[in-house]
Structure formats: structure tokens, C-alpha cells
């Protein structure tokens, strides 16, 4: 049979998410593996989120609240915005996809840094749009290059701050200057998936003064600092006119009931969030010190992960680490052939990784 899959879909190389632990353990016959590959929170979710799920299981035969009432109100309160500026998604992937479908007509383009989060490219193509890549300057997003890549056909720009996979960030002042160079009709999507980890006081933070410009769409997620990657909840804060459009293209029940109550409860547990962030940042500092002492280059980061240049074929190092039950990501697909992306885990996990990496790199075969 001849399927009529649209050209724009066939042209996409699908996003390859990090493999689930179970699959890798099955494949390599290992147990108790350490996964530092998807920038997840090693502490897991707040116990309050788990309790909220148990309290709400009586309602599972009902459709979820398609207007996300409780969660949206809590977010509105947290950021001092009105609820009509908030869109909740089935992960921020969902919001990225509907933004592209709403704002890109076939032939329109969207500018994005490269390398950055690969789903922008994929979602733009899936909507029939053209992704335009603005290369990084070293490891940092080159805002001038992004602004310079904007053409009359540009409808949206994606920025990731801190950037994934490099961990770099841009400052408030740099962003303000950038915004002046962006035409009035171009949407600026700032993906702040890792905002909770940022330590530099000068870093740009779209929710410091939310909705400062109608073009800005800020995306956040519960998958990283809040430890709810398994639940798929992301949110966006944007001008009500933009939110109104997204309501037209989104699935009416895009976020399930349990995910909604878990996220709302997690939001309330500020102490747990602070503890999670502090554990992860300590982990980053520990790993950075150890790796530097090993003579490796750790690229500066404002996130819960970083790139480390292992000065060897990173895909081979990745494979060898799997044998020690350690899962990280090799960055060849992003153009960094000798870099691994590693996120901070628990203290014991971090130590396991360092010990395994030492073993692997001592193997002359890898270095040869």
C-alpha cells in the first residue's frame, strides 16, 4: 500500500530520546544502573505530588479538566499573571508543536540556534515550516547571529536559556538588545526548561517581569527541577492573544488528571524544590571539580547538566560506560564528537560515574 505521509514528515529524522533504564538494563544485562542522561531530578518528585495522586484516583473515570483550572490558578498566582496568559501542555514538547502549527504556514521559517534542543527543528518541519539555524558562538547562543538570520519570512524564533545541550546562558542586557532587533510580527519563544538552576544574577529570566513584551512566549516544565519527567507537564506564559490561538489548536484534554494534580502539588512544595536544586547544583560542582582534576574540559553551565570534553570518541566512551551501568549522552548528533552530556545525580551516582569514566579513559584502546 502507498501511504500518503506528507513530505515534511518524511524529511524529519525523528528525535531520539535517551533510552529508558529498563531497555538498557535488558540490553546489557546490568542492574542498578545510573542514568545521568536526560537531565532528570535524581530525588524524584515531591512526596506531596505522590500523595496528591493517591488522593485523586477516585476520579479517573472522568475526563481531566480541559481548562487545567487548579494548576493554572496556582501558576497565575506564583507569577502574578492572569490565567488567560497560561497554556499547559503534555510536556513542553506539546506546546512547541502547537505553537508551530498555529504560527507557521507552509514556507514560513523559524530561526533557532544550533545546536540547541532538537524538537524545535522537528516541530517546525512537521508544521510545514523551514527551520533556519543560527550557529553558536563557541558554546553560547549567538544572539546577533539569531537576529541576523531573521528574514521577512520569519514568524518565530526559538531560544533556550540555559541552552541545551551546552548549558550556556545569555544575560538580561543581551536579550533586551536582541529584542530590539526583532521585527514586531515575530514571536520569540524562550524555552526556560532549566531556569530553576540558574545561578548567575545577570542571566535573563523571562518570568522576572512576565509578559514584558507581547512577542515573548516563555516555556517552563515540571520535567527537570520538579522531578516529574514521567508525568509530562509543561507550561507556557504568553500574551493572551497568543494563548487564545493555542486554545484553538490544542487537544481539549491534553493533560491527564493525575499529572495535573501532581504538578499542582509539586508547585506548593517549595522546600522540596529548593532541596532538589541544591542537591543538583552541588552535584554539578562536585563533578566539575573531579573532571577538571582529571584534565578534562567542562564547559561552563547554568543548568543541572554540562558538556564535558573527554578528548576521545564520545560515542565509544558512552558505549564503554554502559558496561559499568552508567548512562550518559554522547553529543555526536549535535556536532560535539568528543563531548558527553552529563546531568548531576545523587552523590553516590556522581561518584559511580567518575569512577567508571576513569576506568574507561584509562583503557588505552579508547585513547589510542
Amino acid at each position, binding site marked *: 500500500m502507498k501511504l500518503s505521509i506528507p513530505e515534511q514528515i518524511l524529511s524529519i529524522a525523528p528525535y531520539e530520546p535517551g533510552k529508558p533504564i529498563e531497555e538498557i538494563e535488558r540490553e546489557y544485562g546490568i542492574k542498578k544502573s545510573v542514568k545521568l542522561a536526560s537531565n532528570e531530578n535524581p530525588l*524524584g518528585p515531591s512526596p506531596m505530588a505522590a500523595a496528591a495522586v493517591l488522593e485523586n484516583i477516585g476520579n479517573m473515570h472522568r475526563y481531566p479538566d480541559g481548562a487545567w483550572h487548579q494548576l493554572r490558578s496556582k501558576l497565575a498566582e506564583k507569577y502574578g499573571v492572569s490565567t488567560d496568559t497560561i497554556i499547559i501542555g503534555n510536556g513542553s514538547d506539546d506546546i512547541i508543536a502547537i505553537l508551530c502549527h498555529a*504560527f507557521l504556514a507552509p514556507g514560513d521559517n523559524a530561526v533557532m540556534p544550533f545546536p540547541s534542543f532538537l524538537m524545535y527543528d522537528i516541530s517546525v518541519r512537521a508544521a510545514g515550516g523551514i527551520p533556519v539555524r543560527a550557529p553558536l558562538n563557541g558554546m553560547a547562543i549567538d544572539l546577533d547571529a539569531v537576529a541576523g538570520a531573521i528574514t521577512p519570512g520569519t514568524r518565530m524564533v526559538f531560544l533556550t536559556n540555559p541552552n541545551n545541550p551546552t548549558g550556556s546562558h545569555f544575560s538580561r542586557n543581551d536579550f533586551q538588545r536582541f529584542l530590539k532587533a526583532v521585527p514586531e510580527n515575530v514571536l520569540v519563544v524562550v524555552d526556560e526548561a532549566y531556569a530553576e538552576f540558574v545561578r548567575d544574577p545577570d542571566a535573563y529570566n523571562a518570568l522576572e517581569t512576565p509578559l514584558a513584551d507581547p512577542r515573548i512566549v516563555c516555556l517552563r516544565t515540571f520535567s527537570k527541577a520538579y522531578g516529574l519527567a514521567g508525568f509530562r507537564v509543561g507550561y507556557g506564559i504568553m500574551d493572551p492573544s497568543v494563548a487564545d490561538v493555542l486554545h484553538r489548536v490544542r487537544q481539549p484534554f491534553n493533560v491527564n488528571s493525575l499529572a495535573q494534580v501532581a504538578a499542582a502539588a509539586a508547585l506548593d512544595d517549595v522546600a522540596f524544590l529548593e532541596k532538589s536544586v541544591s542537591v543538583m547544583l552541588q552535584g554539578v560542582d562536585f563533578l566539575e571539580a573531579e573532571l577538571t582534576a582529571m584534565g578534562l574540559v567542562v564547559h561552563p553551565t547554568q543548568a543541572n547538566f554540562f558538556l564535558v570534553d573527554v578528548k576521545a570518541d564520545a560515542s565509544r566512551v558512552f558505549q564503554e560506560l554502559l558496561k559499568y551501568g552508567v548512562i550518559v549522552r554522547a553529543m555526536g548528533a549535535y556536532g560535539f564528537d568528543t563531548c558527553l552530556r552529563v546531568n548531576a545525580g545523587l552523590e553516590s551516582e556522581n561518584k559511580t560515574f567518575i569512577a567508571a569514566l576513569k576506568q574507561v579513559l584509562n583503557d588505552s584502546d579508547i585513547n589510542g
Partner: protein
Amino acid sequence: MFSERMKNLSPYVPGEQPRNRKFVKLNTNENPYPPSPDVQELLKGFDAGKLRLYPDPLFTDLRQVIADRYHIDPKQVFVGNGSDEVLAFAFYAFFDSINGDLLFPEHTYSFYPVYCDFHGINYKKLPLKGDFSIDLSGFLASGKTSGVIFPNPNAPTGMLIELAAIEELMEKLPKDRVVLIDEAYIDFGGESAVSLIGRFKNLLVVKTYSKSLSLAGIRIGFAMGDEKLIDALFAVKDSFNSYPADVLSLAIAEIAMKDVAYYDGITERIIKSRETLTRELAALGWEVLPSKANFVFARKEGLDGREIYDRLREEGFLVRHFNTDGIRDFVRITIGTEEMTEGLTRKIKEIF
């Protein structure tokens, strides 16, 4: 700032989910009974720590459970964030306007035209027969098509097409276009066409956890069909969202599907209530279409559907009314518990 296609969108309007008043909710075809008690057990023992990790993007375990249940191969199963998403991906993957119009019945799930507008797919609505059943000959008489989609049983009529008639239709339809059967309500009295997917490589059967499995809150739907169709759905999925189904929903879905005995029990109760309601309404002079779903579509001469809806709402009962030519005099009533159905019948006797 908006794309051209935005101007033509008229989004699907879901049935209302009231917040401020206790209604007897008979408007969104949810199951009135809770999911399998095994789900509760699973949740009590669930290790919340698992939530920090992303879900399995291939849904390996759930696909195996579904495959076992329907005696097919896991490679013939796709999973999504509710059947709404599965349908959206299928529209994207299989239907376009180059090959002609997508065909579906005139009165059917109102999401189909919404998806067509969204993806720019031309479509043709085929009129129902005089008795409100789907006119299968219309699918054959429409020349070149980009595909066919219909729910079985149909919504909002509840009327079923027998498996033998579907088999005959599949034999006659072109083999190079996808036929999508949306079986959201099949468990309430119909026979699934999944038994035909081995023979007809162009048949895709879509099902949901929201109705017979009583799990509307977890948003899981699935599709069953030839491996090539399933591969195409994965290609589309991976272009939109790597992880559309979450860790806990997947775990719940696995355990629920295995508890066949429990679900047979609550389904039987719903069918009994449906037959009782149908009989009682008929005795009161209502016309009730013969339903094999968990709802009935009914009207009474001299009454407008909107009026029935409004008056029942005042009395605390939410039903669904469609302000659409040809079915404006009907209301759709979801089958609730025995108690809810009795309460409704009593109220109808009282006010109409």
C-alpha cells in the same frame, strides 16, 4: 502574527465539565463506575520515584499487553495521549487531498471535520439513511477518495454496523487507502474489526481507555493495524512529542486491560441500564435510536432538543445537545449507574 489556516479553524467544543454545582453528569459518555480495583492497588504501591524518569517512548510493555488481549503482534499496536491524539496523528499520516476527499458520515464525531480543517484535508460528509444508520453504499459510490473514517458504533446515534457488513465493505473499498474505524464504544455491544487487520492491511482500528475501561482521566488511546500503518504513526508521533503517554498512565493502562472479568461486569450493568432506559423512554412516547454504545440518542415529538437539555439542566441532569441541522430535536444521554438512570427517568416522567 497568525498563520492563514488559523482563520478557518473552529475548534472542537468538549461537553461541559461543571465546577460549581453538583450535576448528574450524563453528557460526556464517561463510565459511571470506577476503573478496576487493581488500578487502586497499583497506585498504593507505586514507587513515585519512577516519575522522575521520562516514560518509554515505544510503550513496549503496554503494547505487549494490548497485543495479548487482542491476539495480535505488539508491532501492530500504537499508543497515544487519548484516542484524540491517535486520530490526529492518523489524519496527518494517512489522509490528504491529493487523492480526493476523506469520507465520513454526516452526523458523527465532531472532531473529524476539526482535524480536516486543521490539516487542510478536503472531506465529504455522507448523509445518514432515513433511520439514522450509516449508509455504507455511500463510501463505495463516491469515486476517488483519500480514505474513509467512521465510528462504530456511530456517535452520537449509538447505532452499530455488524462485523459482516464491515468485512464486505473492506472487500469492496480500494486497498490503497486507509479505512479508519473508531471503536471508542465497541465494547458496549459490538464486535471489534481488529480481527480483520491481518487480512486488510489498510484497516486501522482505534480504541480508547476513556469509555469501557473507565479511565478517561489518564488519556490513553491506541490504534491497531498493519505494521506499516503503525510505523507511520510512530514517525508522526516522533515529530510532535517524543513522550505523549506518561509513566503512571502507561502502568495503569497495563494493569487495567488485564482485568477482563471486572470490566465485563460493569459493561454488562451499563448495557442493562441502557436497555431499561430505552424501554422506559419508548413507553413514554420517545423515539430512541437502537444503541450499542454507552449512551442513547433520543427525541420526543413536539419537543426541541435544546428545550429538553435546558429543562433537565435546571433539574440537575446534564445531557448533550447538538445544535446541528437534522439532529437538533435529539439529546444524547450517557448511561450512568442504575441509580442515575432511574433518577433521570423519574425526572423525565415528571417534567415532559
